[in-house]
């Protein structure tokens, strides 16, 4: 029976020759991830299972990134619970403030995920690692607890939607525009219980950072996972970051897909998702006059070095509008350092931005940039649900780093084309 790329990885994890959509299987895990919100619940559940040790202390990653550096006493207690557990079980991949970053930017950078891996994370954006040709998906704390105890997780084998990318994107079109456009096309439940499998010659034009951004938001279409084929760019990324052995899987030529969605990258425009759903996508030409109060450039979606370079390119020698709070959050310490060495941080600070240590912070309305009633924010994050970044009467507009930087200067949602210097 022909299989999709996801099905092949799951079949290997389940030690089966083949699997078919709908089949319930138990799969061996290469990595189990948790953060400071989901791990405390998982740790309590773990302690209810009668095991003394975790299944493999090298295959668990704990990243306190949401409310860190601890935003209040309660979050300090949650982080302490995670830290104590990591210490007690000698967890190799525990990342303390000062070494940490936003989990989904950090794990690939640390080489903890490679192609062919099966990864679960108690965080919905765990699907990010599909960019590396891994099967990775978000689960809850109980699945994480059982994963830590047994090294296994049950799955229903998903069907897949094939996303065929053709053409080359224009200068100001990035991975973020591709995924916002796709979610706009298929809806927030357009890929419910399914995989999004990317394919096509258009892939060659997408950098690894673009692919991480796209895979990151697969969940925003309801998908179980989003996955990219492994090409030269993937291999050089993996080899530069990891010593782990990797396996390359390809979908069978006659694999079955529920449908194929074709996106011509050359026709895409910078795209903005309006409140309160990521599927409310409009092109920059359709946004109208939307005055804003805040801009956030960061998150597991768009806090990588390429994102910061694009934003800095636009902000270089300019200033953000006087009434705008612009908050730039490099996603990891390494990215922060790189941005410093490349002079990007100076550009941001000269332009009037606040630059923060890595944290999820405002992305989930945690800290470091909460919105008041009636305020609007352009954010490079991934969710614009009601109350996501603060008051229930605030609004979040999702966009690329280029649109976010241009909007910060203009004081309203603006196209980066207005600041084209080339």
């Amino acid at each position, binding site marked *: 029976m022909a299989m999709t790329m996801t099905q092949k990885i799951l079949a290997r994890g389940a030690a089966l020759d083949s699997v078919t959509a709908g089949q*319930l299987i138990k799969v061996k895990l290469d990595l189990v991830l948790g953060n400071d*919100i*989901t791990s*405390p*619940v998982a740790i*309590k*559940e773990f302690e*209810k*299972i*009668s095991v003394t040790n975790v299944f493999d202390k090298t295959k668990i990653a704990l990243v306190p990134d*949401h*409310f860190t550096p601890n*935003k*209040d006493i*309660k*979050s300090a207690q*949650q982080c302490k619970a995670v830290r104590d557990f990591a210490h007690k079980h000698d967890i190799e991949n525990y990342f303390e403030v000062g070494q940490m970053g936003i989990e989904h930017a950090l794990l690939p950078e640390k080489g903890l995920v490679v192609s062919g891996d099966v990864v679960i*994370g*108690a*965080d*919905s954006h*765990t699907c990010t690692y599909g960019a590396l040709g891994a099967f990775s998906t*978000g*689960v*809850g*704390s*109980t*699945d994480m*607890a*059982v994963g830590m*105890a*047994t090294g296994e997780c*049950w799955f229903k084998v998903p069907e897949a939607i094939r996303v065929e990318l053709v053409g080359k994107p224009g200068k100001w079109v990035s991975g973020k525009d591709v995924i916002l456009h796709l979610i706009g096309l298929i809806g*927030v*439940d357009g890929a*419910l*219980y399914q995989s999004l499998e990317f394919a096509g010659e258009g892939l060659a034009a997408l950098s690894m950072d673009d692919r991480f951004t796209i895979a990151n938001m697969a*969940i925003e279409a*309801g998908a*179980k996972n989003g996955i990219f084929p492994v090409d030269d760019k993937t291999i050089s990324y993996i080899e530069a970051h990891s010593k782990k052995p990797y396996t390359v899987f390809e979908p069978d030529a006659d694999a079955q897909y529920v449908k194929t969605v074709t996106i011509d990258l050359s026709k895409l425009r910078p795209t903005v998702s309006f409140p309160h*759903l990521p599927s409310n996508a409009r092109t920059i030409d359709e946004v109208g006059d939307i005055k804003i109060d805040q801009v956030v450039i960061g998150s597991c979606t768009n806090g990588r070095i390429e994102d910061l370079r694009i934003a800095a390119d636009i902000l270089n020698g300019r200033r953000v509008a006087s009434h705008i709070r612009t908050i730039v959050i490099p996603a990891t310490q390494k990215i922060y350092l790189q941005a410093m060495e490349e002079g990007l941080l100076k550009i941001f600070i000269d332009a009037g931005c606040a630059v923060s240590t890595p944290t999820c912070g405002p992305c*989930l*309305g*945690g800290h470091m940039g909460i919105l008041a009633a009636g305020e609007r924010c352009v954010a490079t994050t991934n*969710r614009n*649900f*009601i*109350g*996501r970044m603060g008051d*229930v009467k605030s609004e979040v507009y999702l966009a690329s780093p280029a649109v976010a930087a241009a909007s910060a200067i203009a004081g309203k949602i603006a196209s980066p084309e207005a600041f084209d210097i080339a």
Partner: protein
Amino acid sequence: MILNGNAIKYGDNIDTDVIIPARYLNTSDPGELAAHCMEDIDKDFPAKCKPGDVMIGGLNFGCGSSREHAPIAIKAAGISCVIAKTFARIFFRNAINIGLPILECAEAAADIDEGDALRVDLSAGSIENVTKGKVYTAAPFPEFMQKIIASGGLVAYTKSRG
């Protein structure tokens, strides 16, 4: 298992940020979470929810983050069962894993109105609308999931298998 309660109805795409906003995720205490359940779209929910009530959702119920705090908050608020047209997949897993009964039934979710008296037979997957005098049937769970539910959640199930 038979559940009796009145319907509390919401629309499509009820996301985990409205079920339990992230500003309350600095705790995992079920009682504290329940006190803030649904507050961004329905401030009165904790007050109006009586033990046993049934929550009705539309499409893609529970979309968004993986926070298990969402089904925990709903359960701790007293909801006995959630019926929706479809569930987002992580919420679906989490509900089963923590032992919050859920049923996928588009017909019931469309037909039931706020306040309708319901009688839900979980093992048969049948939903009786006492107010309207109708019966709807939900898709049954695969055997494996029924075992998890019968054990009282994934942790108990895992434990029972050594």
